[in-house]
Structures are given as C-alpha cells and as structure tokens.
C-alpha cells in the first residue's frame, strides 16, 4: 500500500472519523475527535488491511493556544505508518487511556501527564516518572512554565 492509497483507504473507512491533514510530510497524519479515540484506536488495530499492531510514539505539542496530542502507530506485518492527532483545551486537558488497545502506551501517557499536565482518564498508574523525586514546580514542557533558575532564550 503506497502513501496515497493508505491515505484514501483510511479516509474512506472508519465512518469518516479520521480526516487527512495535508502537511507534506511522508507519513500521513489524520485528525480525529478526542471522544472517538478508543474507537479509532481499536479500529486501526483490528482492521484486516492495516493491522496497526505497534504504537511507535505518543507526543504532545503546546501551541500556546491549545494542546495537541499526537499518536504514531505502525504495522509490523503490512509495513505501514500513520499518525493521528487531536486538540485539547489549554485548561484542564483530559484524554482517555488506550492501554487496553496498545499496552505499551503506559509510560508515554505518564510522560505527557507529567510534562504537559494532560490528565489521562482510566490510566490507573499516574505517578512521578521522569522528573526528579522532589519535583514540585509543575509541568515544565508547557510554554508558559517558569522557574527561578529557568533562563529563556533571548529574542534575537
């Protein structure tokens, strides 16, 4: 399946829940609704021609107006890759845990919870992960984050 075939296949199936974004990058990227997350994840994993059985990465992006959560998945048998993402409000962002679909996402979800302050519903093990044990300064990957010894790059 080529890149274009994959794009049209994913858009044509799954009840139109994945909308393709034309970003020019090689791996196609789709936008979904946060409420559809578990349904979409299960559908991508169980689809006979995609078989997205491997979760490569889960990342978050702070765009200063909203937070974006990006899931990168791959198929080890069909040699396919795709990303899907959605936006969350800046205040009290919440996502559903998809540990039941790809159990390997556990640590990634802890990471975005800790670094971006995105609460993960039904995760069950959200606790201190990467930051120092005595950390009490909030979520450092947020763009508005600040600390006494944090030095921002001066504008050039």
């Amino acid at each position, binding site marked *: 399946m080529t890149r274009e075939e994959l794009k049209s296949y994913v858009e044509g199936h799954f009840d139109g829940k994945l909308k393709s974004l034309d970003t020019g990058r090689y791996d196609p990227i789709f936008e979904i609704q946060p409420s559809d997350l578990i349904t979409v994840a299960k559908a991508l994993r169980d689809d006979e021609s995609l078989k997205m059985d491997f979760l490569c990465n889960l990342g978050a992006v702070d765009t200063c107006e909203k937070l974006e959560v990006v899931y990168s998945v791959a198929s080890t048998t069909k040699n396919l890759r795709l990303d899907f993402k959605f936006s969350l409000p800046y205040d009290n962002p919440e996502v559903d845990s998809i540990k039941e679909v790809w159990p390997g996402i556990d640590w990634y979800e802890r990471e975005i919870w800790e670094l971006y302050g995105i609460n993960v519903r039904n995760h069950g093990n959200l606790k201190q992960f990467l930051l120092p044990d005595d950390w009490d300064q909030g979520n*450092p990957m947020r763009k508005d984050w600040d600390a006494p010894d944090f030095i921002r790059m001066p504008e050039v």
Partner: protein
Amino acid sequence: MGLIKKLPVYSEKIPGGGLVTTSVETVLHFSQACSLWYLLFGTACCAIELMCTGASRYDFDRLGMIFRASPRQSDLIIAAGTITKKMAPRLRKLYDQMAEPRYVIAMGGCTIKGGPFYYDSYAVEKGIDHIVPVDIYIPGCPPRPESLLEGCIHLQEKIKKQKLSDWQEK
C-alpha cells in the same frame, strides 16, 4: 630549600642514579601526579572523547591515568557530559565516596555552565562547580582528546606544585 626542591629534576639527569635526598612533599606529590586514576563518569557525548583519549591512539596510560569503575579507587573524577538535576546528587555522592586528596575536571561546556542547555532547559544543572569543587575546566563541545590531555597535564602540574598543608585544609 631551593636546591632540595630542584633535586629530583637534577637527579633524573644523573646517569646510573645514586643517592638522592629530597623532601617527602616532593616525592609524594610527584607520585600522586603520575598515577592519577580517574573515575569513569561519562554522562553524554564528552564520554566518547574520554574513551578515545583512553584508547591506544591518544593513550591516557602514558600519563599514568587508568580508569577505575569505583570511586574508592579513584583520585580524579572527570565529569564528562551533561549533568542533569537528577544526576547532580549522584555526582556529589560519588565525589564524597572518593578518598582524599581528590580532584575534579569539568570536561566540556555542559559541566562548565550548562553549555547548549543553558537556555530553555528545565532539566540541566548550569555548571557543576556549585555541586563539587572543580580544579580544571576544559571548554569545548566536546573537547578534543588533545584538550583533555592538556587539561590533565595542567592538573599534574598543579598537584606537583601544591604543599602538604594545602590538601589537609581542603
């Protein structure tokens, strides 16, 4: 006193050796400087240069420097690489476990002032000199093995020059 200090230098030139008198201080510091065993403490890319310096092309051994995996056998800690805020207490702990006299070389920009992580980083310690006392700073990102060798030679000179009373006060 001046002659006694210089005696080891002259005696090296005496063929066949002979009876040499010198001060305990000179002999002690000479032997210390010539057998600096360093603790392996490579935390980032500077460690690659450190390994290269330890390998046959640059040959750290000729300075009497042999790597040790235990702080209890080391005289010197070469902090090679970025020290994060999580790593800082471990560096201090390893330094405390070393027997005196002990020396620290800060290798690379990260250990001097945070290096490329000075701006916009929540995780990197901006310089190790407020965690452990540093004897020699080697700038570079990462420094070449030649720089590291020169830094070590400077440290040896520093050790040879010091007085017994210096490291008792430390």
